[in-house]
Each structure stands twice: as C-alpha cells, then as structure tokens.
C-alpha cells in the first residue's frame, strides 16, 4: 500500500467528496490559490473553481454563520478554520446556532456541515496558535468531534464527516501534516463512534487521541521492553464516544491512563476517566489517571512549551506506578 501524508489524505478526502456531491463547498481564509498556510488544500481550486473553494475576508464569525445558513438550505459546507484557537471567534455560530438548530426546530432543520481545524502545541506558535480546544466543542450537545491520529484516519473520518447530517468539527494535529501512513487507493470510510484498538495488551489501557496516540504507542514500546503490556486505544471520535470498547478494555487490564492534548482540567481526559470510574469501578486496581496539557496558556519558549504536553516518557512513568501498585494522589 502507498504511503501518503496526513495533508494529502485530507486533500484526497475533500476532492473525492466534492466530486461525489455538487452541494459541497469549502469556505475559509486563503483556501483557494494559497491552499491554506499548511498547503493542505493545494490543487483543489484548480479542479473545483472559486465558486466551490471560496476565499473569504478575515471574518470567522461571518463565514461560519454563512456556512450554517447554507447547510440549513441544502448545501454541505466545509468550513476551513485556519487555527483551532479561532474557535473562540465562531462560538456563537457553532454552539448557539449550528449545534441547536436541529433540536430547536423539533428535527425539521438539519445543519450538515464540517469545520476542519487544527490543534497541537510544540510548534513554537505561542498561546493563541497552539491550543487544543476539542473539549469545548465536545461539551455542546448537537456537535460531533473527530480527532484523526494518522493519514489513514484523517481521510476516512473526513469522508464520514462530510456525509454526516450534523455539524462535525475535525481537529487535525498541525504537527502531523507531513506524517506519512499507509492509505489505500480504493475508497473507504471510517464510521464515527468506533474506537480503534491500536495495540493489544493485558496490563494497562492507554486511551489516547490524535497525536497522543503516537505518544501512547511509544510509551507502550518502552513498557513492553520492561515486561508491561499496554493496550492502546484510539477513540477516533470523542463525540460520539465508543464507551463500550474502552470499558471492555479496562475490565480486562484493570488500569487506565487517558491522554489528550487539551488542558487537563475539565477536559476530555476528565470525562473519559470519569466514565470509566462510573462504569468499571469494581474492575479497577488503580485510579484512572488523566494526562492532558498543563493548565497554563501555551508558552512560547521551547524550554517551557515542551514541558506542557504529555510525552512517551511521562506516560510510561505513570504506567509503571499504576502497575506497581504505587498509590498516586494529586495532593
């Protein structure tokens, strides 16, 4: 099978879906000739023209709101939000409008749209271009959230997102755009709400999202060399969440660490850990541990930034403590 980058995988998914459905279009800043700052969309405007790959002024609430209106009236917009941090700018249109319209209308109106945006620190982009804000979106009923962990995942999840009849936000880790993975030539989709067991193990479950899957896999390799077999699970979508697969794994291993690059407090890791505690409590031999980004704005200096995010070493260290029965208390 060929290897392509995550960026190429997203590009292919968009092109295939735009060929398939003439009501789809891309809207956002510098999406056409520029192909976005990360060049993910390069070549699409040549095939689909500026009517369907629409460059907007720098006006995130405006084009997000327009996508909602287009979606409500029969189109399938794909909103390109240049940085995940700009989600704060579109919050009203995303959370008060898109998320609620189907419900508020008693099921009469649909909002089939995709917001593709990014996340991830350690790119030396400082506090307003480095955040991982998936928990904010996942908190709002009516929105779905996908978090691809490789090129393969990115393509399959994007195609599913575009065909979904709800607002879906896809967070791509901006540090993974050039990461290559095997991606089939033939068409495939990845259903939402089906976690992927990346590695089987019996001693501890590492539940990780997006680029944290790589972190967990590296930690699992280190642990394996020491005789600890970690199971690594990628939920793929945090809304909907495949609770069943996660709980089954924890019932088997009796220990779990949840790893996500969003801030740890009130975050994705807290939510998943809490569900495991509620639904697998009597199977646990140790508290479920959360590993998110530190609760600080992302600092610019490399010396500081790198210590704010979970690392394979950090995950392995916590796993050893849990497996050795060492009690872990936050206090």
């Amino acid at each position: 099978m060929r290897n392509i980058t995550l960026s190429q995988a997203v590009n292919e998914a968009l092109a295939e879906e735009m060929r398939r459905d003439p009501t789809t279009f891309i809207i956002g800043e510098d999406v056409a000739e520029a192909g976005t700052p990360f060049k993910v969309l390069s070549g699409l405007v040549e095939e689909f023209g500026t009517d369907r790959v629409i460059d907007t002024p720098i006006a995130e609430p405006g084009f997000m709101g327009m996508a909602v209106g287009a979606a409500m009236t029969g189109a399938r917009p794909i909103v390109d939000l240049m940085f995940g941090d700009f989600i704060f700018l579109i919050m009203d249109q995303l959370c008060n409008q898109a998320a609620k319209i189907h419900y508020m209308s008693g099921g009469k109106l649909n909002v089939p749209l995709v917001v593709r945006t990014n996340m991830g620190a350690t790119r030396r982009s400082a506090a307003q271009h480095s955040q991982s804000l998936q928990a904010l979106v996942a908190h709002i009923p009516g929105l779905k959230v996908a978090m691809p962990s490789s090129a393969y995942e990115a393509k399959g999840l994007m195609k599913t997102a575009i065909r979904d009849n709800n607002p879906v936000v896809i967070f791509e880790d901006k540090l993974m755009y050039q990461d290559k993975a095997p991606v089939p030539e033939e068409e495939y989709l990845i259903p939402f709400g089906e976690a992927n067991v990346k590695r089987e193990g019996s001693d501890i479950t590492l539940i990780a999202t997006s680029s944290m899957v790589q972190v967990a896999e590296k930690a699992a390799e280190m642990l394996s060399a020491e005789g600890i077999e970690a199971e690594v699970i990628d939920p793929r979508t945090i809304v909907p969440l495949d609770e069943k697969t996660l709980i089954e794994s924890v019932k088997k291993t009796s220990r779990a660490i949840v790893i996500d690059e969003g801030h740890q407090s009130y975050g994705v890791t807290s939510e998943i850990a809490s569900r495991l505690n509620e639904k697998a409590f009597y199977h646990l031999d140790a508290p479920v541990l959360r590993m998110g980004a530190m609760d600080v704005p992302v600092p610019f200096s490399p010396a500081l930034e790198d210590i704010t995010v979970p690392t394979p070493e950090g995950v392995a260290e916590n796993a050893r403590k849990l497996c050795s029965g060492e009690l872990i208390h936050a206090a």
Partner: protein
Amino acid sequence: MAKAKTNTEDYLRMYRQMVRIRTFEDNANQLYLSAKMPGLTHMYSGEEAVAVGICEALTDDDRITSTHRGHGHCVAKGAEFKEMFCELLGKEEGYCRGKGGSMHIADQSHGNLGANAIVGGSMGIATGSALRSKMLGHDDVTVCFFGDGATAQGLLYEVMNMAALWNLPVIYACENNGYSEYTKTEEIAAGSITARAEAFGIEAFKIDGQDVLAVNELTQKLVARCRKGEGPFFIELETYRYHGHHVGDINREYYRSKDEEKDWKENRDPIIRFRGWLVEQGIASEEEIEAMNAEIEKDATEAVAYAEAAKYPDASEVDMHVYAD
C-alpha cells in the same frame, strides 16, 4: 399611501395578514398575563406593515430569518395559528414540537428558517442561505430581519461585506422601532444606519415602515433585482414597538413616554391607516372589514383553546432531535 400590489385580492390579503399578526399578539399577551404561557415573549404589535409588506413580495421558496420578536414574520410568511400557539405553550403539535418556543419558531414549509434569540444571530444564516442560492443556481431570495439594536453587532458588517463582494441575493431588513431593548436607538447607534450599508457599496433605502404598500412596492422591486443578480440590498424601516421589550416590560416610562406611545398608536398605526385607505378606495366596506376582523378573532380564540387543550410532548422526546440521522 404608495401603491404596490394592484388587485383587490392582494390588498385584502395584506390587510388580513396584518390583522392576524395583531390578533395573534393580543392573544399571546393574554396568555402571558393569565400565566398560561411558560416564559416570556416579545410582541410584534405596531410593526405589522414591515413583515407583511416584505413577505407578500416573497414566495414560499424565498427564505427569511427572523428575530426574538418573530411572531409577525412567522405569520406573514404563511404560518398557521394553531401550530404557533401550540409552540408558544410548549405543546407537541407546535411547529418545533414544543422544543423551540416563542423565540425559536421555525416554519420550514414556508421558508421561515427560524426566529433567533441571539440579537443579530441570524445574519450569517440569511447570508449563507443566499450564498447557497447563488452557488447552486437557484433563484430564491433571502430576507434577513433584524432590529436597530442588532446593528451594533459586528457580524452584520462581516456578512454585508461578503454579500456585497459576491452579489448575493439577500435583503437586510432593519426594523428600526426606536428602541434597543430598554435604550433609545439614538443612544446606541452612531451616524446613519443606511450609510453603514452604503459603505460596502450596498444600495440602501430608508422608508416608512408603517405604510404597507410602500414597503411592499420597494420589496417587490428589490426581490426582482436580487433574482437578476443585482443584490444585496438594505432597507431601514421606521416603525414602532407598541409593547415593551418583552411582555413583562410594563413600567417603561423611564425610557419612553406614554405620550409618544399614544402618538404612534393613534396617528401612525399601520392597520388603521391601511383600513382607511381600503375603504376610501372602495376596495372594502367597513362592514366587510369588521367581518374579516371578527373571523380572525374567532380563528385565534379557537386556536388558543386548541393549544391549551393539546398534549405536551412525551418525556421520551427530551433527547430526541439532538442529532439528525
């Protein structure tokens, strides 16, 4: 009064729709005052010529976005009393199965994309509907209703910029009723409202929103031009809100006088004016008009009784419609 639609049937339908709005609101207010309605609502009374003048220039394929003060737009776009009152009372047969209520009534079958409880919240939606129309080669037009208060929201300027850049078939209809909630418009709006649209190269008009024929005549022209790709347009309609910001805003002399309210009601009421014109032109007699009013009142009374007796949604519906299939 200015002339717009030209046959008797059209004139009588416009009158009828204006009276239906006023009657609906009077009944809704009674439901509030008698503590039969959950929550609050915002009355459209006094502004009927705006919604009716505009919506009578539209077809069911044309879309509108509405506001928290949205009952008038909903009726004018073709909605039925029964489903509307059911929605106001949170009943299963409401337009939104009771999940939206007064501030979120949507009636997709007539092109009403819904009221919006965020002031200015639907400006993006309306402009996006127009973008979809142009992109897919349709010829429908979208009207975005909003109040003078909403002109303070930045979203308006973002979407007007894009609508103008891309010649979108959208009409921004600013219902200037003189008050932004509990504050005079002159205290919240600097300069001229129409000049703001003109700054984007959008043709803007300021008209008497109490003259249904003037509103209708202008809208017909602008809708036709939108269909030819000459949009967007902006209309500021001078009108007046008879009630307070919402039904509970009763003691309001600290922000506007009773004399002012009396003046608008007695001298500029859109229904009284249009009724006088219909009689003067020989289009309808006083008796015919009284009969029409009585029939509408009867419809409303029956619809209210129906809604009061109607079922609430089953508890099992609470988590239905969070996601579409």
